[in-house]
């Protein structure tokens, strides 16, 4: 009895500590962003968001995410499928390549595109002759974001798909299911929650990425600044309310993403 009570106290203490750490390290900074944004009331904060350059950065951020997330979802699915369902030479190499964006600095992830597609880069002259702009324009931003966010979907799927194995799919195949039927009726339902979680993480990073996009952006106002870049600009121009208003919106987008994930997971757990 005595031992049980002290372990209960210990659990409570641990939980209390965990909550405290969460509040201090995650809640407080978020609160600070909101407080700074609203320091002069909601009016100036909203006005900062309605500024044409701020609106352009919001649109650009959403557009980049809208392109990169679906591409990386399909790509990540395909990669995870290859790695967990087949044995082939170079499999370990592919696995290492998938993780490459996690291990290199985001600055390098941006710089590689400048080295490839910049005027002085490998394909620069060819592109210039045809009037194609890759870096310092939308395609460069998309490429850099794709690169940085590629591992998220694959990395969340691989452990799960490895654990599940291919038995259910093999059973489906013996029953005469085609490849696509097997994918949509057997594989996808098994992995959908992990997939969703990967997609949402990928989306959060795609919207929040700073380093890689900073290198390829060119920082043209109202044109190639994503929200994180716009926040830096406002901050450097002493427009703190504006900077924190955009930052609060960016944080809010991430929170919405997380909330969507929680709601869907809860619903998924019941089904």
């Amino acid at each position: 009895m005595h031992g049980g009570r002290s372990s209960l106290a210990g659990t409570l203490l641990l939980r209390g500590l965990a909550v405290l750490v969460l509040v201090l390290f995650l809640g407080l900074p978020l609160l600070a962003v909101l407080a700074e944004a609203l320091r002069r009331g909601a009016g100036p904060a909203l006005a900062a968001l309605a500024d044409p350059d701020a609106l352009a950065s919001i649109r650009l951020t959403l557009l980049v995410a809208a392109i990169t997330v679906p591409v990386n979802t399909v790509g990540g699915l395909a990669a995870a499928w290859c790695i967990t369902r087949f044995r082939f030479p170079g499999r370990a190499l592919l696995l290492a390549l998938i993780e490459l964006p996690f291990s290199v600095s985001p600055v390098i992830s941006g710089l590689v595109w400048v080295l490839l597609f910049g005027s002085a880069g490998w394909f620069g002259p060819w592109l210039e002759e045809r009037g194609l702009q890759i870096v310092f324009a939308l395609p460069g931003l998309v490429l850099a974001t794709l690169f940085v966010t590629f591992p998220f979907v694959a990395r969340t799927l691989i452990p799960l798909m490895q654990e599940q194995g291919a038995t259910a799919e093999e059973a489906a195949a013996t029953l005469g299911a085609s490849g696509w039927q097997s994918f949509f009726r057997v594989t996808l339902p098994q992995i959908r929650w992990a997939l969703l979680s990967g997609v949402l993480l990928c989306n959060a990073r795609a919207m929040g990425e700073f380093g890689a996009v900073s290198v390829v952006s060119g920082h043209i106002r109202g044109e190639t600044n994503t929200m994180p870049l716009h926040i830096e600009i406002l901050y450097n121009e002493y427009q703190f309310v504006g900077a924190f208003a955009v930052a609060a919106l960016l944080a809010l987008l991430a929170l919405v993403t997380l909330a969507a994930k929680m709601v869907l997971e809860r619903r998924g757990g019941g089904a």
Partner: protein
Amino acid sequence: MPRLLVPRRSVLTAPLALPFLGTAAGAQPRSVQLLNVSYDPTREFYRDFNAAFTTRWKERSGETLRANVSHGGSGRQARSVIDGLPADVVTLALAYDIDAIAERGLIAPDWQSRLPANSAPYTSTIVFLVRKGNPKNIRDWGDLIRPGVGVITPNPKTSGGARWNYLAGWAWALRQPGGDEKAAEAFLMALFRNVPVLDTGARGSTTSFVQRGQGDVLLAWENEAHLAFAEFGAGQFDIVYPSLSILAEPPVALVDRNVDRRGTRAVAEAYLRALYEPDAQALAARHFYRPRDAAALAAAGSRFPALEMVTIDDAAFGGWKQAQARHFDDGGVFDRLYQPGR
């Protein structure tokens, strides 16, 4: 079956993509875009100048101009233009950075003689920003190497302003009794030992000093010092004019290859010429740049105290190319005298 994925995804992306497409489709046929790639402290000036010039261009040509800007450390901005940032005009911190672009063939080699006054429509100089009441009693360059004085200046490798800071200090040290190049090098070595952090650009350094409260003195562009002064109220800082400084001539140029490709030469030329006109000169003075125009300078009154300034073409430096190669290129004097963490 695979088709299921397609409509679902387009439903997701369509509302996001539409507003973006809307702005692109809404562009007028009689409109023109111009990109000015500039350095850090000109943000406020070009915001106002662009608004004024856009109105003027509409009256003159009927075209709706969208004047875009990009700001950053001068050296980094030049690099971006070399790497393909489609600048129509560059307005950078020093001629060397424009020379670097010209060397790659994007700008005609004689660019600096195409516009009046060395292609620098406004000038500035390097001053000290200190905390209110000047508690460390910093009056001149010699005070910067006293132990316990924290000096904030950006990295001369990436920042144009930082190179002006460095050269102004070098010129002062040369003029001291018994001053020679060895003494100047020793002086700067002692100065950089007092620098706790090297930011990449002038604005980053200002933020370090003003926002994060680092250091006792900021070596800054005169305009940047006045701006921080104006933004944060006179209650927090004082501006100190040293006995000697350097005449900084931030030049402007047309990026020939880009304007010819984009068909924007006429508007880009008009844009740069307009910088020399009286209202732009007055605007420059309002943003604490020293105007070239004598009338605008006189109108600014006591805003710009007279002080002794050397120029980059002084015998001690021999122009930007020589100064750059000697002091700032890899293996140059700066590399020799600056060792981080000491």
